[in-house]
């Protein structure tokens, strides 16, 4: 049984989002045909909400809710899955200058997985940092589909993953209710817990999936002959 998860989303717990989790889940329920997502991972900015309990909402909507974090490093933003007390003691998640290599290595050692997100984005993506600094080691995957990407950013991410041999994930990076689930990652295995997710990200089979509607091409204007009076 496969599982499709939006691996990157922000609820109102992030300072730049106004989206309540319940509204996300309700939207996904209503849009199930267009965005067949089985669950969402809340990756709140620079924090991890250890005590947040979403089981009642999971039961109400039948959608899996997992918790992770998006931290900021000297190589851009990084999603951290499988956050535990050892990680939050080791790193100040509010620090926007965390050392990326240490984050990747230490998170792995502590049982999680750290994945650079939107690498094609200026300033906060891997591509720009790789142009100036040595590449990071032990990167297993990057986010190549991001719902907040501008033109060309996802293409740069795909090229980075191809050239470096990184695996690929997708996430909506939603800060607004209507954007949840637009990009996601399909896993071959069933995922019910954050431990399942970390295991699959490290060694399972998965691929990014894009549910963004295709834009219709703008029709060419037909010249109209203007008759002189």
């Amino acid at each position, binding site marked *: 049984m496969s599982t499709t998860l939006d691996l990157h989303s922000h609820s109102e717990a992030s*300072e730049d989002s106004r989206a309540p989790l319940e509204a996300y889940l309700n939207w996904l329920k209503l849009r199930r045909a267009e965005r067949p997502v089985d669950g969402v991972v809340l990756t709140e*900015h*620079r924090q991890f909400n250890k005590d947040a309990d979403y089981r009642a909402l999971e039961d109400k909507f039948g959608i899996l809710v997992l918790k992770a974090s998006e931290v*900021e490093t000297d190589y*851009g*933003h990084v999603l951290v899955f499988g956050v535990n007390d050892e990680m939050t003691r080791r790193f*100040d998640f*509010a*620090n*926007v*200058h965390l050392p990326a290599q240490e984050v990747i290595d230490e998170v792995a050692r502590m049982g999680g997985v750290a994945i650079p997100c939107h690498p094609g*984005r*200026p*300033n*906060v993506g891997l591509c720009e940092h790789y142009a100036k600094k040595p590449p990071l080691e032990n990167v297993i995957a990057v986010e190549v589909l991001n719902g907040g990407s501008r033109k060309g950013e996802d293409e740069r991410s795909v090229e980075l993953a191809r050239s470096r041999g990184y695996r690929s994930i997708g996430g909506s990076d939603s800060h607004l209710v209507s954007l949840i689930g637009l990009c996601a990652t399909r896993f071959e295995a069933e995922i019910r817990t954050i431990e399942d997710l970390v295991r699959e990200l490290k060694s399972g089979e998965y691929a990014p999936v894009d549910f963004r509607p295709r834009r219709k091409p703008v029709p060419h204007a037909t010249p109209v002959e203007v008759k002189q009076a």
Partner: protein
Amino acid sequence: MTVDYDPALIGRVFETTEPVPVTAEQIAAFCAAINETNPIFTDEAAAKAGPFGGIVAPPSFAVTFRNGRHFFEHIPRYGKQGFDAGKDVEFVTPIRPGDAITLNSHVKEIYEKTGRTGSMVFVIVRSTLTNQKGEVVAHVDHRFMNRP
């Protein structure tokens, strides 16, 4: 937190305004300006039968109260550039004609983040509105972005 600031800044009220009286006429003028037609805001009889037992101001009336003249002088700045990055308003108690509203302002939070355009430092200043009975009627969080 990596942005440098004096922790004593947080929570210390730096400004308290003089009480501003609220009248039914002001509320009616505000309703006319925003095309609010619900009679509980303007018609005494309808308001009396409504959920608040009398005329109240529409919730957004809370944002019409101005901060003091020296408000901006007390906001910590980082770098040379910045802008007003928005406001969050939490409504607590209805404002009624006859109220006298006072604003108390303090720095609620300072944090740094990075984005497409570079580093940013955000300063959140909270203005708490209270009435003459000391009841909080609303909180207004002003979000200021600085480019360090």
